[in-house]
């Protein structure tokens, strides 16, 4: 038996350094900096315009709208990693869901039935895995990272798509985070309000797991 502690898919992104706590913190700081840059930059420009002349009010409004909308668009991009994904025929979906249910514990199975998402505790934090991506809530739950990652076979049932990601995550958590593309990082509340209603209990469970300690 050949053991492979490193996810083989990392070979396809060999230029990327393997993710670790420091790199996640750095990525989080970059996301916060970018959001602040847009919000503060556009907001101050709007204020400056109003100070210069109240007649610039319409233009200032456009700047204020940008200051609000751009961070929201970032969060919306993050929320898309937990979208349900395209469903196939009912029978394969049922079979795939059965296999996925066998892979997870009782609590995670209950959450899976309610949200279509799987909660997985890891060393980096609490993971919430969906068919087209995953969210990592860091220990303490002050920040999360959204990752776009999927199995590139559109014919697979939704449950199998989640199972693919779950197995890869369990093989090599760090490799999984390295292969995945970062889509957003920020506070959980920023993501939660952009999520479909059905997915919110999943994020709540991941936040609770991250607060209570993982690993």
């Amino acid at each position, binding site marked *: *038996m*050949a*053991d*492979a502690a490193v*996810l*083989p*898919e990392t070979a*396809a*992104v060999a230029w990327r350094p393997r993710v670790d706590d420091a790199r996640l913190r750095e990525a989080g700081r970059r996301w916060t900096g970018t959001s602040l840059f847009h919000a503060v930059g556009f907001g101050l420009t709007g204020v400056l315009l109003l100070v210069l002349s109240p007649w610039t009010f319409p233009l200032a409004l456009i700047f204020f709208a940008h200051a609000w909308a751009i961070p929201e668009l970032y969060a919306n991009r993050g929320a898309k*990693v937990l979208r349900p994904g395209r469903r*196939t025929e009912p*029978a*394969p*979906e*049922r*079979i*795939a869901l*059965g*296999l996925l249910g066998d*892979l*997870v*514990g009782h609590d995670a199975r209950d959450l899976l039935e309610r949200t279509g998402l799987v909660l*997985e*505790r*890891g060393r980096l934090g609490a993971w919430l895995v969906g068919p*087209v*991506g995953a969210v990592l809530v860091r220990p303490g739950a002050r920040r999360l990272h959204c*990752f*776009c*990652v*999927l*199995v*590139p*076979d559109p*014919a*697979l*049932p939704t*449950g*199998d798509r989640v*199972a*693919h*990601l779950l*197995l*890869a995550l*369990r*093989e090599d958590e760090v490799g*999984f985070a390295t*292969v*995945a*593309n970062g889509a957003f990082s920020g506070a959980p509340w920023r993501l939660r309000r952009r999520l479909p209603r059905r997915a919110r209990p999943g994020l709540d469970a991941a936040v609770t797991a991250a607060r209570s300690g993982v690993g």
Partner: protein
Amino acid sequence: MAKLIRMDQTGHTTLATWTAEDAPAAEAATRALREQLDLGYYAVVTRGEGHAQQITALPADADTVILRRPIAGG
């Protein structure tokens, strides 16, 4: 009885079943595994909750070997 299953469009397909005592069945399962690995699948066994291990040969102690496709950043 151990089984080799592949996640596919049908949900999953059982490609082989075997026991340690049934050498021909184990050989057939090994051949099936090799074929799928050659097709680009990865074989994984779960090792308790939260752990999985990629394998390239049938382990003696596994109940289920799951074949999965490679993942990629979206």
